[in-house]
């Protein structure tokens, strides 16, 4: 890869200067190997999160409570599959194939967002996932629309538009539940109780413990620190929970007029690292579902390739 990169025309400005000037780096441009590796890791992790994220929601397609909700949920999951596609395609511009990336996911080497290792237990979880999980994802992703790598930027612009739509849909599910019967309000509160802390964990470890943060900020792959984004999310979400009449499960949550932010209680990083390491409630199921889908589909992919080859070989003599 290094030799190949060196053969490419060196830009007039150095890589660091281009980053400094907020120029977008494109697939054919020279880039440090570590920058490429970081992008592949980050974009593929995002792609994997989209397709693993289809599972907890897919779990509710067949049980959605109304036809309208069923259609909305199907459309949402379809968007997520589409996001997975753009992101795998963005990775491919960095010289790695989708099959390679999937192999890394299936072997457990590549990570995906840990949030999807929590179970979607009730219909209210479809609301909470949209509201909180997609809400946190947007917080993380909007700055990525200005990240330094061009193909990633273009994928993210599209993704963010759809994600914000999903977040509103999720909130609307919560709103309907909160205005419904007592059992519906309880369902909504229970979902908030279970998804709140894992959602805060979605921003990753605190700034002092984040391994990749500093270099990523310097290369403008990241634009804000984990803790900054987490605070922004809490500040945005608390009034939304108030509007729903639901209680955020944090006794230490309160407005701090001096900081002009909400203070919140400590995050259980022990739980976070355990879920990351594979000990979450659904890690094994999620991964084995993905592996099963891939393995059960192998004969279909083989057939499509074999058929295409046969078609091509039929066309060659006809053309000559």
């Amino acid at each position, binding site marked *: 890869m290094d030799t190949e990169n060196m053969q490419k025309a060196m830009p007039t400005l150095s890589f660091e200067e281009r980053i400094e000037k907020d120029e977008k780096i494109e697939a054919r441009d020279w880039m440090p190997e570590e920058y490429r590796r970081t992008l592949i890791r980050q974009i593929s992790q995002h792609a994997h999160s989209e397709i693993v994220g289809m599972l907890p929601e897919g779990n509710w397609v067949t049980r959605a409570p109304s*036809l309208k909700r*069923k259609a909305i949920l199907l459309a949402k999951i379809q968007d997520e599959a589409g996001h997975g596609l753009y992101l795998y395609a963005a990775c491919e511009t960095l010289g790695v194939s989708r099959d390679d990336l999937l192999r890394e996911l299936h072997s457990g080497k590549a990570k995906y967002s840990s949030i999807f290792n929590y179970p979607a237990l009730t219909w209210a979880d479809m609301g909470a996932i949209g509201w909180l999980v997609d809400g946190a994802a947007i917080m993380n992703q909007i700055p990525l629309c200005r990240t330094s790598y061009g193909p990633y930027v273009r994928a993210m612009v599209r993704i963010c538009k759809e994600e914000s739509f999903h977040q509103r849909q999720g909130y609307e599910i919560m709103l309907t539940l909160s205005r419904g019967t007592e059992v519906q309000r309880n369902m909504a509160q229970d979902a908030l109780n279970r998804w709140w802390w894992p959602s805060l964990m979605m921003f990753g470890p605190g700034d002092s413990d984040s391994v990749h943060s500093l270099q990523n900020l310097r290369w403008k792959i990241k634009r804000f620190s984990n803790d900054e984004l987490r605070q922004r999310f809490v500040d945005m979400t608390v009034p939304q929970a108030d509007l729903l009449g639901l209680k955020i499960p944090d006794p230490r949550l309160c407005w701090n007029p001096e900081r002009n932010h909400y203070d919140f209680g400590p995050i259980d990083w022990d739980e976070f690292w355990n879920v990351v390491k594979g000990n979450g409630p659904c890690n094994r199921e999620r991964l084995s579902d993905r592996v099963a889908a891939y393995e059960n589909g192998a004969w279909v992919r083989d057939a499509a390739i074999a058929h295409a080859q046969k078609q091509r070989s039929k066309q060659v003599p006809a053309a000559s």
Partner: protein
Amino acid sequence: MSIGIERVEYVLHLADNALILGQRLGEWCGHGPVLEQDIAMTNIALDYIGRARMLYQYAAGICSPESTEDQLAFMRNEWEYRNLLLVERPNGDFAHTVARQFFLEAFQMDYFKALQHSGDATLSAIAEKSIKETAYHFKWASEWVIRLGDGTEISHHRMQEAVDALWPFTGELFCEAPCESWMRKSFDCPDPAAMRSGWSARLQSVFAAAGLEIPTGNWMQEGGKTGRHTEHMGYILAEMQYMQRAYPGMEW
């Protein structure tokens, strides 16, 4: 209201076909053989759920003022559903899903064209929309029948096996239920039996390209159109109706 009973039953037959097939396709969500096909199947499922909604809304309108699309979709008993047995067949492997889709779309290609010219304006409008969707669904299913039939030895074997397994459920497509005959006489709705030649021609051309054999068995299973279903139906409803049954009368 007696004048509307057959019409309601007929609309429910079309709606139930769309709902149950949409439900089945929705089961694939997140588990497709390749991401592009996951998206394709979700797309088709969405078309079917959308069609089911239009039809249930129409049926609810002629049923009674209190009736709603969700009540019709989720709160009826098993024997009140009027869908074809074919659409309730389990997804099986991808070949079974493709075969099920292909058999139905090959039928619907002509059916919706004919329904478009019926004397029922709402059904005619729904048919017009369905023609476009069916053309895409039929293309998707035929291409996969050919890919799998022609692809590898394994895929050929699986495709033929799926075709053979679903064959006994194709006869019902062409049996005219009492409500269909009433709608044919009253509103010039299509006679399903008249779809057979077009259906057979499509099978012949696609199966020839796929190197598949058209099964010859002529003992057919039927009953869905009149509410006598297979054992699978109860499980579909248990899952699909769960929320509405567990929490009746609530808004979602």
